[in-house]
Structures are given as structure tokens and as C-alpha cells.
């Protein structure tokens, strides 16, 4: 429950979503993220810190630079979360099918009335 809350709150911010989308193209350093994501320099390190803390990005040093890349774990989590809702719809349509069968049986019973 706690993990899920973090995942959605992390992505609720449009700037962070842009950072994540930029990182889909591969590992980047801060300056490139700022440029390619078309975001303001200010606040970018705070967003990257939040993304790092919530497990969305990993960071590794490369000389003087720090390189950021995406981690797959939170995306698996998102997929699993969505799958539950798909499962709910499947259950709903199971009931739809059952209700349909019942009505069909009833109608067949009434055919000779």
C-alpha cells in the first residue's frame, strides 16, 4: 500500500513525468535532461532526488558527472496495479455472462406461454 502511494505521487508531478520520459531514451546527465525534457533548471535536482528516493531512477558517478537512468521495478509495480483493475472488469463481465445466461434460460422457459 505504501509503495503504491509513492509510485503514483511520484508520477503525479508533470515535470517528473517529463524527466521519466526523457530517461526512456537512455542514461542521461542532468544538463541533458534539462535540455531534452524542456524543463527549468531550477528544481531539477529536487525532482531527481525524489525520483531516486522512490526507486524510479538510479544514479552512478562517471568522473565529475552523475548519470541518471530508469529502474524497472516501479514500472512493474504500475503494471501489476493496473492488472488488478483489469481483473475486476473480467469479474464484472463474468457476472454479465452469468446474468445473460439466466435471462436466456428464463426466456426459453417462457417461450410456450
Amino acid at each position, binding site marked *: 500500500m505504501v509503495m503504491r502511494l509513492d509510485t503514483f505521487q511520484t508520477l503525479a508531478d508533470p515535470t517528473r513525468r517529463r524527466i521519466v520520459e526523457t530517461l526512456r531514451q537512455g542514461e542521461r546527465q542532468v544538463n541533458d535532461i534539462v535540455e531534452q525534457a524542456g524543463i527549468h533548471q531550477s528544481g531539477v535536482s529536487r525532482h531527481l532526488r525524489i525520483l531516486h528516493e522512490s526507486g524510479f531512477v538510479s544514479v552512478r558517478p562517471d568522473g565529475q558527472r552523475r548519470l541518471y537512468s530508469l529502474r524497472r521495478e516501479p514500472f512493474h509495480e504500475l503494471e501489476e496495479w493496473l492488472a488488478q483493475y483489469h481483473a*475486476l472488469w473480467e469479474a464484472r463481465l463474468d457476472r454479465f455472462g452469468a*446474468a445473460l445466461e439466466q435471462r436466456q434460460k428464463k426466456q426459453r422457459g417462457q417461450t410456450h406461454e
Partner: protein
Amino acid sequence: MSEKKNVVIERTYKARVEELWELWTTKDGFASWWGPQGFRVEVKALEAKLGGLLHYDMIADAPEVVEQMKKLGQPLSHETRGTFSEFKPHQRLALTHIIDFLPGVKPYDSTMVLELFPSGSSVRMVITLTPMHDAQTTQMQVEGFTSQLSKLDKRFLG
């Protein structure tokens, strides 16, 4: 999460298209399947026409659900309103729900489209949920449609 893809769910039933249509557009038909597991639906109004009102209560029914709702301090009955924003008998309808039960969230509409494609003795039923524009709203919308448990949103929204 940024791709604005629709969620599409489909099934094929051995039935006449009229039979499927009735399950969506009559009071007892709709009530016979809509409510999520553990809930029953009491339909107060269902106006089967373009712009027609759909008004129903979702009522916790199963003991474990009742207990869970009580534990979360949530009401056992939840009033829901929608309208048929498209209505082409036996072919297509759009059901727009008014999501006005999320604490701290301005009311918004969310729409699902039903399409029926008859073929021989079966009908393919396709349901399309229209996503909203960001992850958090999509989450709430999917939730509104699938479980209608406004209860969970509180937890997600903190």
C-alpha cells in the same frame, strides 16, 4: 503512463444483440451484473434514451465488504449518477459517470463506450474506458469504473 491509450475490454457471448442490450439499458438488467463483487446495485432511474439519466445506489452486500467499509469509516451505500451520452440501440452507447465523490477533487466526467458487433449466433461486446490525462486521474477514473469504491481513493490520495 503518458500514452493516452484507452483501456479496451472485450468478450464474445452466444446471444442475440437485443439480449445484451437489455442488460445495459433496463433497470433489472443493469442491476443484475453491474455492482462489483460484494455489492448489489439498486437502480433508481434508468432512462433508456440519448441524454437519459442513470441513477443508482451501490450497496455493500457481502459481510466481508460490509466489515471492510465499516473499518474504513465509509458509508455502506454509495449514490452514483450518470447519463447515456450516446445511445444507438443494439449498436453503441456511451455512459458518462459523474465522479463527484472524491474528497478534495472537483467533480469530473468519465466516459465508457459500449459497442456490440453481432456475427452469426454470437455478439462481440467491446468496452472502451477513456483515460484522463495524468496518472493520478487515470488511476481514479479506472477505479471509479471498475470498483466504484471511492473508499480506496482516500488512501491513494493520502
